[in-house]
């Protein structure tokens, strides 16, 4: 049995299979193809899907739902994500799991609603005040939406953090024949609940990298959630070393647990050329690597990056080309200090980068 479906539908299906039971959305191309199936499907599994009056409401509803203990998700594109940013910072600070699907379209501003683009990597990686790290996970094909949205929800839950699922119009809206049996379903993970042993503190941890045990608002243990600088108990404070410790913890719990969400595809060939890419452009890279017999590295965890790991791969190559559909070379900017001297940034906007364009570039260097 095959299905004829889009990345958007697979994101919805994956999210539901990952245990998401709350979705709030506001229509925006190219993320409406996630909003619609969530509205249609969530009530069937006794979940809640609501249309919000704007993207700020959408993410706020998700934050509230997650605090009550339910896995929550929203989906938007650049303009809507711009509105969500303050609340995203809040979710980082108050350690609330939520998954935000960011389906990129041509920017800036309203840009081109129906034009594919990969311009929001830097924007989303540095989208919070204070510049704290938050995981960004990106599918490199339509079918991978299913597997990686489950990973994304998992990561948000076990690290108690917002996670950005970064994708593109040509992934969410393009339809493809897919064999359901070939979709990979990772194990579904849950946030860790406080067991009742010892004293409950909303933000308790021993080691900076520890994720505090969760207890919901309305649960048995009284909680004190806040987006202001706070101690482990959740009390708003300023002149207390514990407040600074909590802030360092927000960084460490992401960076020190990076191995738990390091997703990539490395295809090694006997070649001294490596192509690095992500998202929808990966498919062109796969196609051309086959033909030109070059190696490639597809990154599916786009932020934070495990630098020593990347370096160990990059060292093997004489020439490295980073291919992506944006103006500045977003990924190139993130990794250029690791690339060595012979590094190239191949970028373009307006339409997909085709295998032919990569081929021409390879022949020109």
């Amino acid at each position: 049995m095959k299905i004829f479906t889009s990345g958007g539908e697979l994101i919805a299906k994956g999210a539901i299979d990952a245990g998401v039971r709350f979705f709030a959305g506001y229509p925006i191309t190219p993320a409406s193809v996630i909003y619609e199936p969530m509205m249609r499907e969530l009530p069937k599994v006794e979940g809640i899907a609501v249309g919000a009056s704007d993207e700020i409401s959408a993410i706020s509803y998700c934050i509230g739902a997650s605090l009550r203990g339910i896995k929550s998700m929203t989906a938007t594109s650049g303009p809507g994500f711009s509105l969500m940013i303050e609340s995203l910072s809040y979710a980082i600070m108050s350690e609330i799991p939520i998954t935000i699907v960011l389906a990129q379209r041509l920017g800036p501003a309203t840009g081109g609603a129906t034009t594919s683009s990969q311009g929001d990597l830097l924007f989303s990686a540095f989208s919070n005040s204070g510049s704290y790290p938050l995981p960004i996970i990106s599918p490199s094909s339509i079918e991978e939406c299913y597997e990686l949205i489950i990973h994304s929800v998992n990561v948000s839950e076990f690290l108690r953090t917002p996670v950005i699922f970064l994708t593109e119009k040509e992934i969410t809206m393009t339809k493809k024949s897919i064999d359901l049996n070939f979709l990979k379903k990772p194990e579904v993970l849950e946030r860790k609940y406080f067991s009742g042993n010892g004293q409950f503190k909303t933000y308790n941890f021993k080691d900076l990298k520890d994720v505090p045990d969760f207890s919901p608002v309305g649960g048995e243990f009284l909680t004190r959630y806040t987006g202001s600088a706070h101690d482990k108990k959740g009390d708003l404070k300023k002149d207390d070393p514990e407040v600074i410790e909590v802030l360092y913890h927000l960084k460490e719990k992401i960076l020190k647990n990076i191995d738990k969400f390091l997703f990539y595809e490395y295809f090694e060939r006997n070649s001294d050329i490596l192509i690095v890419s992500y998202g929808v452009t990966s498919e062109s890279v796969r196609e051309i690597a086959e033909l030109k017999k070059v190696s490639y590295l597809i990154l599916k965890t786009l932020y934070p990056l495990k630098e020593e790991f990347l370096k160990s791969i990059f060292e093997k190559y004489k020439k490295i080309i980073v291919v992506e559909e944006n103006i500045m070379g977003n990924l190139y900017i993130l990794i250029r200090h690791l690339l060595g001297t012979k590094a190239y940034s191949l970028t373009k906007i307006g339409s997909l980068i085709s295998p032919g364009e990569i081929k021409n570039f390879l022949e020109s260097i």
Partner: protein
Amino acid sequence: MKDLFEIIEKPQNFPYCPGCGHTSIDMALARAIFELNLEKKDVLIVSDIGCVGLVDKLFNVHTLHTLHGRSTAIASGVKMVDEVLFDNQLKTIVMIGDGGATIGLLHLVESAKLNVDITVLVHNNFLYGMTGGQHSGLTPKEFKTSTTIRGNPFEALRIIDILKNSGASFYARTFSQDPDLKDIIKEAISHRGFSVIEILELCTGYATRYNDIKGNDLKIILENSGGKIKEKIERESFGLLYKSKFFDKKSEFEFTEIEAERKINLKNPIKIVIAGSAGEGVQLASSLLCISAILGGLNSTQKNDNPVTVGSGFSVSEIIIKDGDIKYTGIEEPDYLIITSMDGLKRVKGFIERSKNIIIDESLTDNKNFIRVPARKYIKLRGGPTYFSLGVLFGKFNPFDFELYEKAILKYGKAKDETLTCFREGLNFGRKL
């Protein structure tokens, strides 16, 4: 609970300025919770930003300190879930000031409209206290603040009127010294649905600095601005409505499922671009083409292109059919380019040079190298030009078994008779070419 001070700090420990209205409101709220005999774990206080946001530490219940203006929306998220997926025990009380009410106005309106089961206490002290007594959206006309030193020239926003008209099912307006305040709060908390109380109060830190005003004057201000209000409307809450309207049909995730009927042998991939006008069936006809390939045991992809409005302008689909895995879903050199309208022609001009075969409506060109067909003759029928042109493609080139396309129409199409007729006419036309 035996003692009121199990849930609230002693007033002498409050962080507010002496005489601040927040003290009276917090105490009234604590008494209300106490008299309702609620368990601590069944109460959630959601606070906004400003002096009003200092409330968390005072209460020994669940507390949630949020962003400026977002308290109502976050509280609504909590309560939607609590009402629908849990036992609806959690009493959720939102504490906002002037800023929370104006920044969060849309959230208040939306939650009132949805009748989410929360209680909002609007602490209206006519200005922004924490930041230094600047005027706010709720500052009355002539009222003096640090930013309206000669008196505010504008009228205050009537927050209760807005929320009443947005569908709040319980709304009240009073002042902080009102002896009934505790009972009104009790009623609001007990009400199932959106309840809001606007409470006029005095910022002793700033309001008194610029205006000749004392606590007793609040009653006069209240009376001069519409007086005390308390109304209750019977209306189903968000959770009751959601459960009754949504939780009825249980079924599997709805995918377009296709069982292959046979296995077609296809040596090379087929790449087809169909370009026409919005509303003329391009996308559906293209989906059916992909489905027909799946019926034949092949793989397919469909990448669509349209302007922001789906109902006007061009509509283009790029379709790849392949025996094997399809990676890149774009098309560089189409095997077949179908053009059914001027909109479509303009959009795919770049493809013309690179296409092997072009099927185009006869009105659009005289070029003899193209296969000119009377596609637009079928414009009266649903998707006519597109289905006719696809028929021509199958009739002339026979890329794979046309019967599979007919099956796709019959099983997955719309306006099946009309589209089938057009397709067959095209098929016959194509065969004769």
